[in-house]
């Protein structure tokens, strides 16, 4: 119950699809999705494997609550060794694809090997087959999804696909489902492309069962009420989406600007959630058309937007006049403040293209920001960029380069490397703003100290979604802590990381945790699944998962020295705002963090810690 108890194993080398039972002991120890799929990956691949080799595997996994009426219960994740980072990758996506996998009767799909030609996987309940995808070679995610639905004459098929970027080896290609939902980070789409797998198309009609229907209904209703009553999930996110944060983080002095040279953006308002509501001059309509929900989600934070039809990017391109997935905060920051660009329509256009062709807008924007700094320093010039002036603040540079990167043309080929490889290539590795090869998201570790530690220790490289201390340090959830203070942040980061690993393994969205604690989640899992599920058990499971991911990375060759931040955050003091004069206090937080984790001084889990979690 809640689990379907079945895994689909797809051997792309042999071209076969086989069903096998889910390991229920592992499900009891790792729950589902992120935790359970990582357990499978660790038991089946050598962490030292080349991410793009046939020996790497890629797992699409649901959680036990995926496909149920639990609010936000539509999530699935892609787990693999990431090409961008070489670390464990786990990218989580919403939309409706996760439910479809579960409704077709599968907890997970494990892809192994490499197909000798481009194929897509079609699943119709218990029937699965690999189909030639030659006709979709180079096609965008949008054209692939629409093409597969039309070909099979079924608008209810759900599709997750890569665009040309994933086929061409852009290091941060996404997997896009439902047109604008993404398993976005760490290059999971690049791994999919290396396997010659273009898309996964699913139609599920079997239904998802829970253990105790009545108790589940009660727990779900209680959970929905908590989300409705909370100001963030009940009001802020539906109204402004994650973009509610743009002005807040800017005022907090933690909005990385121009490749982290500044930490406040003078034009933050122009690219904010509030600006998306304001009528534009040309037609009097706002950028924002509506909010929207992923499967079963009662928060509905998604933005649906249009681009001003008179804007230079689309005035002659009517195909971009329709509404589509609009700017979330992270993308608005990376395409906007990180590059110093204040043109909301240019940002929206760039975001559309990232969705259409399947690249991660966070890494793209951050990589372009690094390239802009290289350009302004004279390290690269017009010869490198094909004559495009890569100055901070140039909307034209943004929209030209996003298209070149999506289509692997011109200087876009180099931007497709990500900032670490790009900056190393030009002899300026210190200009790459990230950790373990993955670029920072939209918060500066000088202005918000805890998130700096969370970035440095995140198992998938710099990431806000592995321990979102912003909730506490800025929003006061569950309790307010001082963003400029380092004391107590080691414990805060650990608590967020462990709880998040449990949320990410359940099939629900981490945004629910603005309102829910594990005390709200446990009754839903307990009513849905076999076994006795308490908040304490989930927290322990989360910590087990964190240590397992750490073991993967250590075995892959990472060490404690990789739990670091770029010199800019450690040495260059913030110039303005509440954090003026501050650098990251990582060196004081990290030793305490290792100690709380039960790790050695160089960041390795002690034998006692491993024994405690059965690892």
């Amino acid at each position, binding site marked *: 119950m809640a689990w379907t108890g079945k895994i689909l194993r797809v051997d792309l080398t042999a071209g076969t699809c086989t069903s096998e039972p889910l390991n229920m002991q592992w499900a009891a120890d790792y729950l589902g999705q992120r935790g359970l799929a990582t357990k499978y990956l660790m038991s089946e691949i050598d962490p030292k494997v080349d991410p793009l080799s046939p020996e790497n595997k890629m797992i699409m996994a649901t959680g036990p609550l995926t496909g149920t*009426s639990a609010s936000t219960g539509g999530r699935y994740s892609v787990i693999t060794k990431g090409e961008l980072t070489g670390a464990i990758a786990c990218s989580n996506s919403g939309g409706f694809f996760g439910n479809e996998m579960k409704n077709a009767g599968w907890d997970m799909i494990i892809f192994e090997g490499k197909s000798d030609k481009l194929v897509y996987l079609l699943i119709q309940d218990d029937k699965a087959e690999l189909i030639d995808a030659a006709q979709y070679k180079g096609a965008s995610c949008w054209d692939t999804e629409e093409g597969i639905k039309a070909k099979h004459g079924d608008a209810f098929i759900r599709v997750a696909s890569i665009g040309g970027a994933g086929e061409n080896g852009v290091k941060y290609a996404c997997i896009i489902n439902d047109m604008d939902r993404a398993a976005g980070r760490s290059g999971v789409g690049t791994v999919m492309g290396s396997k010659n797998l273009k898309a996964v198309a699913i139609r599920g009609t079997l239904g998802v069962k*829970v253990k105790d229907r009545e108790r589940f209904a009660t727990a779900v209703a209680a959970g*929905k009420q908590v989300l409705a009553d909370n100001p963030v999930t009940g009001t802020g996110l539906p109204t402004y989406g994650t973009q509610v944060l743009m002005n807040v983080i800017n005022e907090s002095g933690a909005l990385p600007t121009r490749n982290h040279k500044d930490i406040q953006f003078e034009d933050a308002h122009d690219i904010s959630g509030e600006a998306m509501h304001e009528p534009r001059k040309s037609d009097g309509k706002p950028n924002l058309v509506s909010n*929207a*929900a992923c499967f*079963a989600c009662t928060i509905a934070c998604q933005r649906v937007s249009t681009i001003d039809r008179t804007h230079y990017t689309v005035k002659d391109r009517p195909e971009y006049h*329709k509404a*589509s997935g609009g700017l979330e905060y992270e993308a608005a920051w990376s395409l906007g403040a990180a590059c110093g660009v204040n043109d909301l329509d240019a940002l929206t256009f760039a975001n559309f293209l990232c969705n259409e062709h399947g690249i991660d807008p966070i890494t793209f924007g951050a990589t372009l920001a690094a390239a802009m700094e290289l350009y302004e320093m004279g390290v690269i010039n017009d010869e490198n960029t094909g004559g495009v002036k890569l100055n901070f603040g140039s909307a034209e540079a943004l929209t030209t380069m996003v298209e070149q990167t999506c289509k692997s043309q011109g200087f876009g080929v180099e931007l497709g490397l990500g900032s670490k490889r790009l900056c190393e290539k030009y002899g300026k590795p210190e200009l790459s703003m990230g950790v373990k090869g993955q670029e920072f998201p939209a918060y500066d570790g000088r202005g918000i100290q805890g998130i700096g530690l969370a970035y440095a220790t995140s198992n998938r490289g710099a990431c806000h979604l592995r321990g979102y201390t912003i909730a506490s340090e800025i929003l006061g959830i569950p309790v307010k802590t001082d963003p400029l203070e380092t004391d107590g942040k080691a414990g805060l980061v650990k608590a967020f990381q462990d709880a998040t690993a449990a949320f990410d393994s359940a099939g629900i969205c981490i945004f629910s945790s603005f309102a829910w604690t594990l005390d709200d989640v446990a009754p839903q899992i307990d009513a849905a699944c076999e076994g006795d599920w308490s908040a304490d058990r989930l927290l322990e499971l989360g910590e087990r998962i964190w240590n397992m991911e750490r073991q993967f990375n250590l075995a892959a060759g990472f060490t404690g020295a990789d739990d670091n931040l770029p010199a800019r955050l450690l040495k260059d003091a913030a110039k303005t705002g509440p954090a003026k004069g501050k650098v990251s206090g990582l060196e004081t937080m990290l030793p305490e963090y290792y100690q709380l984790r039960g790790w050695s001084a160089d960041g390795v889990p002690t034998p006692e810690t491993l024994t405690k979690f059965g690892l």
Partner: protein
Amino acid sequence: MQKSLHISADDCTGCYQCVLACSDEHGYDFNPMKSVIQVFKFEDEGRYVPYTCTQCDEAWCQKACPTDAISVDANGAKVVSEALCVGCKVCTIACPFGTINYNADSGKVIKCDLCGGDPACVKACPTSAITFVNSDTAQFDKMRAWAGKTDAGTQQSN
């Protein structure tokens, strides 16, 4: 008092909570394909529209049924008798709105039955896009909104 489902698509986020509640309430687990309320998405316009049976007074489905399997319950809902339905699907052809459909699992047709007067979709909807209201006054809120617009600024202040 007869009550009707009142759907305000403007308030719908496309979350499927109504769809899930419907299939669960009728014993089909969480299975969007077995729900008799569906949410249609017009992605290019950012619109989400829940749609289900409106319980016609002179119901095409009921008139077309050769076995008199469709009757009216105390709430005015047109209800299919599983015992009498033979799965001929004539009602599905007769319904102009497509809101009665054949279910291959049971070999019968399924349609909205208003859950015996306490619709599950209404309770599940997080934005009150679906409400269960007095049929006679179902559209009064819309009238009120237009009345406000029509009369705006025309009355003398007192």
